[in-house]
């Protein structure tokens, strides 16, 4: 394992009476791309500000390269931030903005100029030195902000929804570019987004946040394929959540008894007691909806059929009133609204979630 750049230990933070962070722990290795994923208000920006030193935690410690920096001001930390709105200095041109960190460190003018040139090449903005921030497009400002925060070669770069203000096409392009930069420079990135696609696309690891806690920290495939909680399953993979009880257990295969039928799921190494409640996460494209009322699976009625993003989706209302979305590629599906169907899946495609925790994934 390579060197640990950042370690957060049991961070707590409240604003007034509102708890924002409730025991955050995280370790980031050199060169790692970690994404904090969560909806707005989950505490991800506060986490980032605590790492940057712009906020002080009520409890817990921030270690940078093994040193306790919890109380150190931002200017004493080898960490730089790309702010959500870029925060370019409006009264300085691109060159002055990018070179600011070096000017502070009293580096010779010629050297600053040289470094700025290199950084602008890196973000593909050569020749923009004399422009003012007001004369740049959103994407260009974004690049300037990145160049400005990278010029001092920080060990750790924090990015607060850096692509939030860009249109979809530019986002995709910048995702690639950021990833390329990160690989090239070998800097640890802590990246904030609420876009699960972006997170899955770019990260080495994803920390899914909710209400000031990490729900799960893991690789994109861990988070996507083996969500720990129903929140993660819904947020990251837009999975369906079904609740029922455990039936018979035979080896790895566990029987699932829902209000509206029986099916089964794989135990994935957990032990299940017959009769206890269980929650499953099943991705829409991994579930089959078959016409008819006989056979295994959960019974329901097709409510709606829609086509989007190359996928045909049908919404099934289960007998218990819950909604279940099935999807498949293509445009043809023999089902129509009103049809009675049974929903079933391969046992290995159903992931049991919200199990009592044996140990948390992180810190």
């Amino acid at each position: 394992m390579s060197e640990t750049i950042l370690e957060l230990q049991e961070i707590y933070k409240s604003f007034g009476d509102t708890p924002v962070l409730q025991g955050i722990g995280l370790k980031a290795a050199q060169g790692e791309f970690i994404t904090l994923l969560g909806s707005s208000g989950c505490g991800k920006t506060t986490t980032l500000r605590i790492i940057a030193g712009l906020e002080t935690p009520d409890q817990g410690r921030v270690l940078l390269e093994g040193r306790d920096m919890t109380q150190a001001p931002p200017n004493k930390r080898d960490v730089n931030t790309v702010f959500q709105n870029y925060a370019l200095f409006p009264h300085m041109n691109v060159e002055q903005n990018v070179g600011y960190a070096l000017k502070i460190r009293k580096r010779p003018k010629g050297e600053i100029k040289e470094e700025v040139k290199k950084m602008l090449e890196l973000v593909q903005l050569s020749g923009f030195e004399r422009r003012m921030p007001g004369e740049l497009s959103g994407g260009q400002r974004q690049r300037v902000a990145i160049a400005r925060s990278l010029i001092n070669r920080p060990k750790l770069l924090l990015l607060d929804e850096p692509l939030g203000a860009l249109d979809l096409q530019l986002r995709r392009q910048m995702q690639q570019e950021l990833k390329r930069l990160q690989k090239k420079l070998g800097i640890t990135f802590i990246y904030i987004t609420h876009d699960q696609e972006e997170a899955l696309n770019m990260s080495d690891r994803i920390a899914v946040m909710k209400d000031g806690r990490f729900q799960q920290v893991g690789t994109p495939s861990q988070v996507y394929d083996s969500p720990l909680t129903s929140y993660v399953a819904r947020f990251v993979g837009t999975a369906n959540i079904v609740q029922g009880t455990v039936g018979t257990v035979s080896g790895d295969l566990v029987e699932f008894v829902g209000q509206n039928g029986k099916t089964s799921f794989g135990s994935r190494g957990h032990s299940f007691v017959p009769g206890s409640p269980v929650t499953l996460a099943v991705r829409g494209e991994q579930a089959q909806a078959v016409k008819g009322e006989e056979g295994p699976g959960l019974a329901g009625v097709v409510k709606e059929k829609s086509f989007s993003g190359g996928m045909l989706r049908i919404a099934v209302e289960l007998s218990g009133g819950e909604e279940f979305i099935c999807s498949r590629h293509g445009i043809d599906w023999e089902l129509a609204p009103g049809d009675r169907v049974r929903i079933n899946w391969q046992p290995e495609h159903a992931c049991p979630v919200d199990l009592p925790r044996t140990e948390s994934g992180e810190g």
Partner: protein
Amino acid sequence: MKNRTKLPNLYLGVVLALMYVPILLVILYSFNESKISSVWGGFSLKWYGELFRDREMFQALWNSIVLGVLSSLCAAVIGTLGAYGMSKVKFPLKGAVEYVSTLPIMIPEIILGMVFMAFFALIGLPFGMTTLVIAHTSFSIPYVFMLVKARLVGMDKSLPEAAQDLGASPVRVFLDVTLPLVFPAILSGMLLAFAMSMDDVIISVFVTGVDTNTLPVKVYTQLKTGVTPEINALCTLLFAATLLLCGVAALLGRAPKKQESEKDVTEP
């Protein structure tokens, strides 16, 4: 298109006439040969000549300029630091403290004048330029304070944070980022303070010494002996200077902001 009536134009005409006809008359009479204002005796620069020979008047003008510059500079420093400090701290009575620090705008000048006089007499400070500068600074501070405060409130909080994140100490953040961004507000506050100082009579009368006359005080005292057309000439010159200053302020691009704050000042 809306069918417009002539009424708004007429209204505007009346308002402009009320404001500017007296000024135009003063300008016109400053070129009047006759000593009696109401009689037109032909075009002449006589009164300007007389004005330029009036050493006392010029001394008063000079005093006023020195006073205006000094007091607006002091007010700029104190007001800016005050507003910046206020933006950095949080305490329960902050609103009340801010209100109190802008109060001098609302206190009648006559009271301020008496208070200053009593205070300076108490501490034994000789009346003259020093007392004038102190008094003018203190009634000018709120203008700078309020304009700078408004500017700081409207400023993107992440800018100073970004500077600090890039390694700047709090002092550097202030000098490199905050100060340049609030500078237009400081400047318009100073212009306002200078203007207030330039035409203040009441407070100045209370705190000035025997041999330090400011221009407004001098003009005011001359009224007792009758207005000479020389005053018309002086007013014309001052009006021209004011126009010039307004032009500069407009060029700085902060005129709308200033007007807004001025309104805020006078409303309560």
